[in-house]
């Protein structure tokens, strides 16, 4: 009999109410189980969403979990909510976001040095879009504000964690990096 509430349903309740990503430890604490059991519990929930006729899915972001809709439901949601799909980012925004993603936390000054052009307004617009955020001040002269990427950034690029950021692959560079390819043969 389903009198007893299952852990996976409890996890579902927490993730639903929180909306934002919830760390493994917080789920564990609320359920009264060790941290290491959380991924198994969430996996059950994930399976239910996969099997059943459900529009939901579990997002695994860094060390946290979040409830979201399956990608294929985006059109019907947009129709109902009358929202537009996020526009693809301009090259300038992509470059800036990439520099932030691979070097975070970084100051606006650092980004400007890499890109060779003032990028302050682009950083601000990435913050407005929720793709980047402040990350305290950096311990370099002038103590500039550092920027890092957000959970939305991970979601928008279908990443589970920053470790999944693609390695800029050598083929892309071959036109410019002639003769340097051997250096990339570093054993991991």
């Amino acid at each position, binding site marked *: 009999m389903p009198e007893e509430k299952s852990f996976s349903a409890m996890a579902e309740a927490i993730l639903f109410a929180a909306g934002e990503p919830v760390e493994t430890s917080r789920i564990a604490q609320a359920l009264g189980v060790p941290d290491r059991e959380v991924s198994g519990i969430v996996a059950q929930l994930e399976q239910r969403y996969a099997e059943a006729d459900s529009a939901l899915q579990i997002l695994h972001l860094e060390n946290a979990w979040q409830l979201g809709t399956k990608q294929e439901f985006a059109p019907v949601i947009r129709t109902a909510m009358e929202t537009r799909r*996020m526009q*693809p980012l301009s090259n300038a925004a992509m470059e800036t976001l990439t520099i932030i993603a*691979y070097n975070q936390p970084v100051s606006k000054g650092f980004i400007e040095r890499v*890109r*060779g052009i003032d990028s302050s307004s682009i950083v601000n617009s990435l913050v407005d879009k929720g793709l980047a955020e402040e990350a305290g001040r950096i311990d370099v002269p002038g103590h500039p504000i550092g920027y890092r990427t957000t959970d939305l950034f991970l979601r928008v*690029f279908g990443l589970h964690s920053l470790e999944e950021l693609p390695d800029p692959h050598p083929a892309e*560079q071959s036109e410019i990096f002639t003769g340097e390819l051997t250096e990339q043969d570093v054993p991991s």
Partner: protein
Amino acid sequence: MNEIQFKLDVFEGPLDLLLHLISKHQLNIHDIEITKLLEQYLLYIDTARQQNLELAGEFLEMAARLVYIKAASLLPKPEEAEKAKRDLQGTLIEYALAQAAARQLREHFIADDIFIRKPVRLPRQQQAYRLRHSPDRLAETFVQIGRERMKGQLLSDKITDTVTQARTVSVISKVVFILRKLWNGDSVAVASLYEGVSDRSARVATFLAVLELTRSGRIRLNEENTMLTICQKKGR
């Protein structure tokens, strides 16, 4: 000039333009032919100007940087030029990497197709802060922000960066500087523009600014190239 078919607005900045020129003319990024690069770069700047495009100041700063590298390489001791060239190459390689990474990241773009929920508002959610901190945290944060900034009158990040990085001096700032000197119609000795200016990039910027102003007809040099006067506006 017809052979230069630049799409002028597509470059993200001077580095983007340089990378374009390097790949177009098959230059070796690890040992750039500065003369050729400079020539092509200036051609671009000219084309942009003919089309009345507003170029960001950074494009002119880069011109100054290239001119400097070329000029310094003609000196008997070209070590300085070598170093400046290596710095530029390093900057370009770093930027090329960032561009490659950006292109790859873009392939993962799925926009905001996954929807999430806003957090549920619990009745007592706006609760008073319960943690305790040492008052030293306030002092530390104060220091982090910096005393000047705390008064709300700093000096943007950009200025701080300029101070800490000793960047190339902008040509535009020198253009303004020169025009100010000439404002009331006096003539000014060219040499006086360099008085007290020991920083090399500032000297290069001054030189380029004079060039720029004479070329565009805003100022005139006397025959000996020693004195500057401002050109009176003529009715056309």
